């Protein structure tokens, strides 16, 4: 019964999406200050739809929890012997389940918007909900017509086929839901942008409504990408943290657009400039989310992490993509001219720096987009190519380096217009840090150019991030400003980690007999023994490595080579020794004919800073949201108090006259 209820909930939700779309559209017919009687159904439809879509997802979770093998999806992706946690995470470790999660988050964010957003004019709100309903409808159609997660098997399976062991990891429990919430949070930014474009209500108060959604989606994307990078690093066993893999790029592209959008929406909210540009980025950011979904879900690209792919579904998503992105950009092209002009600003100003950052982010986005799609284009001409780091690294660095430089200076500039001469000290400090660090590091040896630049920029950014606080009373600095400082410092921390990993990593690869010792950096690694071990659904060989730093007390590391039996495959479980200044990363390989074991050990100085930086960036975003919400609440209560006082005064008739002092 449960599967049927879930399916019914999805159909009902789709019907409500139609109602939301039509009713919301009537809001555009509302006269000034009035609400069209047919427009009042949009909000309740969005809320009930959210409830139904989330219900459907919970029902699927339950089917996975109890391993209901009469459901095709469960039989194809789960196994009764699997640990409960991975049964649950297996719900979204496949195509249908992850699309249901996507739709659930889409509906939930639409429902939240409908339930809690009261500041937007009703016409804009109606148009926004209509667009949100339209987007949801397409994805309901996709689920119901081509990827029904609740499909029953004619005869229940005797046992499930299991879940790809690479996905049986706590990383999968966190990474996709976070990323999806971010992707889909951008759908609200998209709907708001389209709603405002349709009603021409693009102004600072609109930007203040849009900003928390953009910030929230951006924080989730940041954390999702950070978690995904760490997962790939420790789970794939290759010791890398970014592979420029199409699936990774699929999450990076919306992040780049969202980063630009977050900055431009702040300019619009604070200074009433960049009106059309913000709308365009709102459309672009969600377009990138959908493109990412298409790339990952359609099977057009092979990737080390693409799973559950099916080319036939590609056409459906491609159709949706064309409809939404094409439609949105058509409306944008037709309406953009009608959006009123924003305020002017000089090139040397905070706005100017933010525009520069936006343009650089867009250029990097173009580089990543073209590199990701290029193999698809050439394949149409029967030429097969793979595009890898030799393209992505230098091409994106050309735009990233000036962006980081301006990022250090931008927050120090004044709004509207500024004189660079005012910042002589700061500019000199930043230049000295970049050049000084590069020169100092080059003195100690030959290092590749990009890590060197990264180190110089990281040092400058780390210091510059705190310069906006200079000479201010720290107690009176707004929370949102602290958020910016922290996020920019996080970028410096990540950059430092990436540069150190690129420049100073050491690697040792050897075949070692039990009892043998290998030296890497300050560490002596002894292979004590190799033993077989068994887990709930796998067996493994496990090495016991005694790691001793500078002859100190040894620490034990246990890298494993695991074999799963359903589906039959092997994974490498790396073992990590985390120190404050880096990580020792160990992997065990095959046994040579003479009985020696292959072991591979990396010393990666400060590699953890890559992810600490990601967490700091996310935390900065959270502070910015908290700061904005606080200011909004204060402003609202201040207006309420003002209204109350005016009412009190009116009720008294005449204002009380102060008693004249004698």
């Amino acid at each position: 019964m449960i599967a049927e209820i879930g399916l019914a909930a999805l159909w009902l939700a789709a019907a409500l999406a139609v109602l939301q779309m039509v009713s919301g559209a009537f809001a555009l017919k509302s006269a000034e200050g009035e609400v069209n009687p047919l427009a009042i159904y949009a909000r309740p439809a969005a809320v009930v739809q959210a409830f139904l879509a989330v219900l459907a997802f919970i029902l699927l979770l339950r089917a996975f929890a109890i391993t209901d093998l009469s459901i095709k999806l469960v039989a194809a992706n789960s196994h009764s012997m699997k640990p409960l946690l991975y049964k649950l995470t297996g719900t979204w470790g496949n195509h249908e389940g992850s699309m249901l999660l996507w739709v659930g988050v889409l509906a939930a964010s639409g429902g939240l918007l409908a339930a809690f957003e009261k500041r937007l004019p009703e016409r804009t709100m109606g148009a926004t909900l209509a667009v949100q309903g339209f987007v949801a409808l397409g994805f309901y159609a996709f689920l119901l017509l081509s990827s029904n997660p609740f499909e029953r098997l004619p005869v229940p399976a005797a046992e499930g086929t299991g879940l790809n062991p690479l996905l049986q990891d706590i990383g999968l429990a966190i990474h996709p839901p976070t990323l999806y919430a971010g992707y889909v949070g951008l759908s609200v930014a998209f709907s708001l942008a389209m709603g405002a474009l349709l009603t021409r209500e693009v102004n600072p108060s609109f930007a203040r409504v849009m900003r928390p959604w953009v910030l929230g989606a951006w924080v989730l994307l940041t954390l999702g990408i950070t978690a995904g990078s760490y997962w790939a690093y420790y789970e794939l066993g290759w010791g890398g943290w970014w592979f420029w893999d199409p699936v990774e790029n699929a999450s990076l592209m919306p992040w780049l657009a969202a980063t630009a959008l977050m900055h431009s929406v702040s300019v619009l909210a604070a200074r009433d400039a960049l009106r059309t540009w913000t709308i365009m980025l709102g459309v672009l950011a969600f377009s990138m989310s959908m493109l990412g979904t298409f790339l990952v879900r359609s099977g057009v690209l092979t990737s080390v992490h693409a799973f559950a792919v099916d080319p036939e579904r590609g056409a459906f998503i491609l159709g949706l993509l064309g409809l939404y992105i094409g439609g949105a950009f058509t409306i944008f092209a037709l309406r953009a001219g009608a959006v009123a002009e924003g305020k002017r600003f000089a090139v040397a100003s905070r706005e100017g720096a933010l525009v520069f950052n936006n343009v650089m982010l867009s250029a990097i986005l173009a580089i990543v987009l073209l590199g990701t799609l290029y193999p698809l284009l050439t394949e149409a001409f029967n030429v097969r190519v793979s595009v890898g780091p030799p393209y992505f690294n230098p091409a994106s660095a050309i735009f990233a380096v000036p962006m980081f430089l301006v990022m250090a200076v931008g927050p120090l500039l004044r709004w509207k217009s500024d004189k660079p001469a005012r910042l002589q000290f700061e500019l000199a400090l930043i230049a000295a840090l970049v050049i000084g660090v590069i020169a100092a590091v080059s003195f100690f040896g030959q290092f590749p150019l990009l890590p060197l630049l990264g180190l110089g920029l990281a040092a400058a950014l780390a210091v510059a991030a705190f310069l906006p606080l200079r000479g201010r009373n720290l107690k009176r600095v707004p929370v949102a400003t602290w958020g910016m400082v922290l996020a920019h410092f996080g970028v410096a921390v990540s950059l430092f980690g990436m540069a150190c990993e690129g420049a100073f990593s050491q690697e040792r690869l050897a075949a070692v007999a039990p009892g043998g010792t290998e030296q890497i950096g300050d560490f002596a690694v002894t292979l004590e023994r190799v033993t077989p071990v068994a887990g709930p659904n796998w067996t493994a060989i496990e090495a016991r490595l005694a790691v001793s730093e500078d002859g100190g007390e040894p620490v034990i590391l246990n890298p494993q080579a695991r074999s799963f039996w359903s589906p039959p495959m092997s994974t490498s479980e790396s073992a990590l020794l985390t120190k404050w200044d880096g990580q020792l990363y160990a992997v065990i390989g095959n046994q040579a004919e003479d009985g020696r074991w292959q072991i591979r050990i990396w010393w990666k100085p400060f590699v953890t800073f890559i992810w600490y930086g990601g967490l700091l960036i996310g935390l900065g975003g959270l502070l910015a949201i908290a700061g904005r919400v606080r200011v909004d609440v204060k402003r609202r209560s201040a207006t309420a108090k003002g209204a109350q006082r005016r009412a009190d005064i009116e009720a008294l008739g005449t204002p009380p006259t102060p008693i004249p002092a004698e």
Partner: protein
Amino acid sequence: MKAKHQRLVLVIIALLAIVGAGLLAAWSLRNQANYFYLPEQMAATPPDVGQAVRLGGMVQKGSIKTEADGVTVNFMVTGNTADAIPVRYSGILPDLFVENSGVVAEGSLGPDGVFIATNLLAKHDENYVPKELEGMGTQDAAKMAAETTVGLN
């Protein structure tokens, strides 16, 4: 400068930067067109020594030899023709690296004509087949799919 003019200037700057990025991408991607080689292509027009490329093909039967250090492996990669490229790789072999199965080697050609692989991509999960290998003859492709894909019926 009027607001309208400023908007125009902004649009032009943004367009220039993005078109610039596009041109840069197109230019470097054209160089990347030679990034992936089949053995016969590498035999006919070898890439420059040291240039980062990928070599994809099948691991020739009986060609896998481990050196005395226990971690360096030499093998031959073949494609649709008789051409075979010798490959040397130091590292932990992917679990599904076996004779007669598909492999993509990342690395560069050494001065002695041996391809020095820094990374080997064999079958990665039960659904993954290196897309580049689809260009092999139907027979080889079918054989490779059968041998390198576990769990698909």
